[in-house]
């Protein structure tokens, strides 16, 4: 009997994922400024992790909730393990940062330099013009406790002296204060606001002696769990929540390593945080700001590339005519997502278009798609948008979108209470020769023209009647026009995806038991759903060969003899963020392939509206099979799970980085698919 657990804790698995992101910053094949960007991504990810996941666990701990997770840990045990791992990663990040910073200096890019004579005059001008007018120091006394420090707000803690009495003062850097100032002299310098402020503290406290100053930053719990059933008006409740969100408990404090222990002790009492929540940072606190520097020098970045129009499409193509002849599959960012934007724009102007409907989870600023929707309304089209207001960190923006679209005359709805709408669908209803034709666009990625350039995703457009019917039924369901839908081709969470996947795995198990070839490839972002994991274990035990390509959280430990020995787990971290969910089943030789918006997590399967769709047409199916094949062949950006950790493959021979390959060869895949 094997005693190693086949389950891995979700949070620790996520930290492992973020480590893989960070390790891109040490890959010599990655351009220097891109390496810096990976550090910024790592930091941004970690911020969110603390705010959401750690915050949530702290709530559970404080509420006395002691239910064990999939790996058998209580919330308290998880917090201890997270703290240990996060400290380790934070320390590692600092070392990597120092190396990159030093390498950048060789390229005449200097980050957070000492403000010497050369820079002094400029820094002082920045202080006087940008910083001094907007800061409000609070000197702590019995009447003035430590002020409330908002989430992620950087502070300068100053120890000052007057008349032999030592005072402590806190300056919270305002949200609207620019943090990085670029100064181009013989080299390009990036000055940080907190460094400038610390240098000119004497101006802030003119009658005081400045003894020392330190930076610190707090991360607060922002668990966004909302009980939607209690809210009559979801929109109002979100607005209300956004206001209250700024006052969560502290789950991390990043401090300057020089901060004296007594001050830290006093702060921890006043602000209510533990020793384990403290992260000592020697150098730069809050590396998310490094995003501002990553475009400093084009030759230190990834070479630019132009996404291509797919298979016979051009800027002037009659999209509807082409789609009617043949389903179209695209793979972002290698294919040009602007084709979808153009399709919506064409629909807005097309006198034959009756209606346009779409789901909106995350859109970009200046979205041309949303501008087209507004235009379509003006042109007399019936436009409906189902907006997900609870798209994490985009809530405020989505409320604004909702208002803008409503003002334009769109029918805006907010989906179903208790279910987050994660499916990405667009439906264009057109009257052609007196008949209604529906064009359906389905995607694993958002209608976001910015992220379409950095996430990999599948787009599928079809004029298939059955698919169009399902898509219309889905919108009817989401918009509250009907409570009961019938489906031909769509499998939708929360009710239908998981049972379908379990059924498909069961079929593979049956093939394996019958001594036939049984194989699955599962490409998802995360897997933590216990029912699905247990089914995979069952499949492995039955002899089904399973390859998992899991970018992020993977709650299953591969390769345990007699348990998961037929499962291999890999993760691809590269230039583009892996985002599509593509599932392959050998199915006795039928080779069934699906794409989906759903990760294999309880939240996706049980509490979201997600889509799971089988690609039946030969060409797009072959195209997806080729994509999966390339994923499996990548030997430059792939990490293989070993135990609870991962090891990077870095083949010296027959190098294949699948992102690089697709930049140059995406259209070859289309051609191969036609064979």
């Amino acid at each position: 009997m094997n005693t190693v657990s086949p389950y891995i804790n979700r949070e620790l698995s996520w930290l492992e994922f973020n480590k893989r992101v960070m390790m891109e910053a040490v890959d010599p094949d990655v351009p220097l400024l891109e390496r810096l960007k990976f550090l910024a991504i790592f930091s941004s990810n970690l911020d969110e992790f603390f705010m959401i996941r750690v915050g949530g666990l702290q709530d559970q701990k404080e509420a006395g909730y002691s239910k064990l997770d999939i790996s058998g840990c209580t919330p308290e045990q998880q917090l201890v393990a997270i703290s240990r791992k996060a400290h380790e990663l934070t320390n590692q990040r600092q070392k990597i940062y120092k190396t990159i910073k030093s390498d950048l200096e060789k390229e005449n890019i200097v980050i957070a330099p000492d403000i010497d004579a050369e820079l002094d005059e400029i820094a002082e001008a920045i202080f006087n013009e940008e910083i001094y007018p907007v800061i409000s120091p609070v000197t702590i006394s019995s009447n003035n406790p430590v002020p409330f420090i908002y989430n992620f707000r950087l502070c300068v803690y100053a120890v000052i002296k007057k008349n032999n009495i030592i005072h402590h003062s806190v300056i919270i850097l305002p949200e609207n204060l620019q943090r990085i100032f670029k100064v181009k002299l013989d080299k390009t310098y990036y000055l940080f606001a907190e460094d400038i402020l610390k240098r000119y503290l004497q101006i802030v406290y003119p009658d005081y002696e400045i003894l020392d100053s330190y930076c610190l930053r707090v991360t607060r719990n922002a668990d966004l769990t909302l009980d939607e059933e209690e809210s009559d008006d979801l929109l109002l409740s979100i607005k209300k929540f956004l206001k209250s969100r700024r006052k969560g408990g502290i789950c991390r404090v990043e401090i300057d390593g020089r901060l004296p222990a007594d001050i830290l002790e006093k702060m921890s009492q006043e602000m209510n945080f533990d020793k384990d929540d403290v992260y000592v940072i020697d150098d730069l606190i809050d590396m998310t700001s490094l995003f501002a520097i990553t475009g400093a020098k084009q030759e230190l970045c990834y070479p630019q590339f132009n996404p291509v129009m797919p298979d016979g499409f051009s800027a002037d193509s009659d999209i509807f005519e082409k789609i009617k002849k043949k389903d179209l599959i695209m793979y972002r960012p290698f294919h040009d997502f602007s084709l979808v934007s153009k399709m919506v724009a064409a629909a807005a102007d097309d006198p034959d278009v009756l209606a346009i409907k779409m789901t909106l989870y995350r859109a970009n600023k200046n979205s041309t798609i949303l501008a087209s929707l507004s235009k379509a309304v003006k042109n007399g089209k019936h436009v409906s948008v189902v907006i997900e207001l609870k798209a994490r960190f985009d809530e405020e923006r989505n409320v604004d979108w909702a208002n803008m679209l409503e003002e334009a005359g769109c029918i805006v709805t907010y989906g179903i209470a208790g279910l987050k709408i994660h499916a990405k669908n667009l439906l264009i209803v057109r009257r052609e020769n007196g008949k209604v034709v529906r064009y359906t666009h389905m995607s694993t990625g958002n209608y976001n023209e910015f992220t379409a350039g950095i996430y990999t995703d599948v787009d599928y457009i079809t004029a298939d009647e059955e698919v169009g019917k399902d898509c219309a039924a889905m919108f009817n369901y989401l918009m509250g026009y009907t409570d009961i839908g019938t489906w031909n081709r769509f499998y939708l969470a929360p009710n239908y995806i998981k049972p379908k996947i379990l059924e498909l795995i069961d079929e593979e198990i049956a093939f394996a038991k019958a001594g036939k070839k049984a194989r699955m490839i599962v490409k998802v972002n995360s897997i933590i759903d216990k029912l699905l994991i247990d089914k995979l274990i069952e499949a492995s035990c039955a002899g089904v060969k399973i390859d998992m390509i899991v970018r992020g959280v993977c709650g299953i430990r591969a390769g345990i003899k007699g348990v998961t020995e037929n499962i291999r787990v890999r993760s691809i971290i590269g230039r583009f963020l892996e985002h599509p969910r593509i599932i392959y089943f050998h199915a006795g030789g039928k080779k069934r392939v699906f794409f989906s918006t759903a990760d294999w997590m309880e939240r996706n399967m049980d509490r979201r509206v997600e889509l799971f769709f089988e690609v039946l047409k030969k060409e797009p199916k072959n195209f997806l099979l080729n994509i999966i094949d390339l994923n499996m062949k990548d030997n430059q950006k792939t990490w293989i799970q070993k135990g609870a950790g991962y090891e990077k493959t870095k083949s010296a021979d027959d190098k294949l980085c699948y992102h690089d390959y697709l930049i140059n060869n995406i259209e070859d895949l289309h051609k191969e698919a036609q064979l």
Partner: protein
Amino acid sequence: MKNGIFAAINIGASAFRMHISEYTDGDERPLEYLIKPLRLGRDTFTKGHITLESVYAATEILKKFRHKMDEYGIKKNYKAVCTSGVREAGNRAFFIDHVRQETGLELEIIQPSDEIYVKYVTVKNDIDGFDDFEKEGVLLANISSGNIALAVLKDNQNIYSGALPYGSLRLRRMFSDTPTHIRYKAYEQYVQKMCYSIGNALPVGFELNHLVSAGSSLNVLLNIFKPKKNMLKKAQLEELYEKVKHMPRDTIKSVMKIRQDEASVLVPTLVTYIKLMEFVGTDFVRFSHMTFPHMLSLFYSNTVRDKGFVGRVRNTLYGLGERFNIDRKHADTISEFAMKLFDALKPLHSLGRQERFILEAAAILSDAGYYIDTRKHNQHSYYLVQSIEIPGLPRETVKLISYLVLMHNGDVNDWFENKYHYFPMEKQLLIKKLVSILRIADSLDSSHMNLVQDFDVDILQGKIVIRAKCRKMAFLEKHSFETKSQVFAETFGIPIELETRILYE
């Protein structure tokens, strides 16, 4: 219908449903089907009216349906009908008005006989072999939440039709205070009484052979059994009934994996089906998979037609006449004469096929009142006709027939001056035109002896002459003609004369 998109909305006792179809050159293509549960029947069947809260909820649903219609540019190409949940509500006028104000939708109340007729026509087109069932005797049952509408058909006659308050939701509400474990017994007794009522309405010794069902109650059974053919067996329904009849709703819901609203009506639905199958003496119930709004769409878009309608109604009228012991020969004669007159006088009256049929129906049933009393038989005929319910025959048509049978005898002017003065002029004129013809046709067989064999109609300058060929001297006919033809002259402004010629003596 012409090519285009048609929407049909059904506001039922337990849910709102909408079906949208595209029609191209006679082909139908369903585009959308929407369902929103809302139990108006719960209000209506317990309180007698729809609560304001439900009126608002209904309006919200219909606003969404309206949006859906706007999406396809549907403005007038729709039919929105309300069944028992609204029909029986005391505040139905307010409900309909509120919906009109808020959504622009014009709702209509559909009568049970019209509801069963729509289903009859569409089911007839949908179920193979229905024509044979119709010959052999079929009970078509529309079992919905509020009512059960029934039609018994045999030998191309509508033997019986009616709507009875036995819908599954109504039963559920009616016996909601009865303890769960014995509630099924109450359902059994109540539905048994319904079968007794139907049996009483059928001719003695009448045999039925088939049961065909339509109506929302089917959905729960289809969800459970998922039959591949359009047929459910009595044995499987009985087996299920034995399993669930003692169970409370929540247990049924979890055991059968069905929705709560379905669980709450499962037992009364099963009782109804089983009892009806026993009544008919069949082991099967056949059904159509079509939803009611889909049927409405096909019917009101004129995509399905009742080709045998006129013949069946005529047969049904004669069947009714036989029940009232009418003189069949006399009925045939005046019907034939009325039709001949109608056709010959077309240049005067300018009426169409529909009015011709009204005249024919009135000719068949004009003497039905003799069954009650020979005195004032026309008045007895009037109320007997008023009580007729024939699926497909609009209420207004039935009323027109009743006015004709009333006025085929007696003082027409008196009726209009004292009773029907409020009728619009057009309606008065229509009745007068048809009555004028009916009275002349009736006078031509006044003796009930078929003395007038045939006649010709000559429209001359200043008068109309009927030249009748008689078997014998037609004293009564001539006398009656003198009395009854006055209305004709007043209506058309031209005198009408009768000349008789004896063919054989």
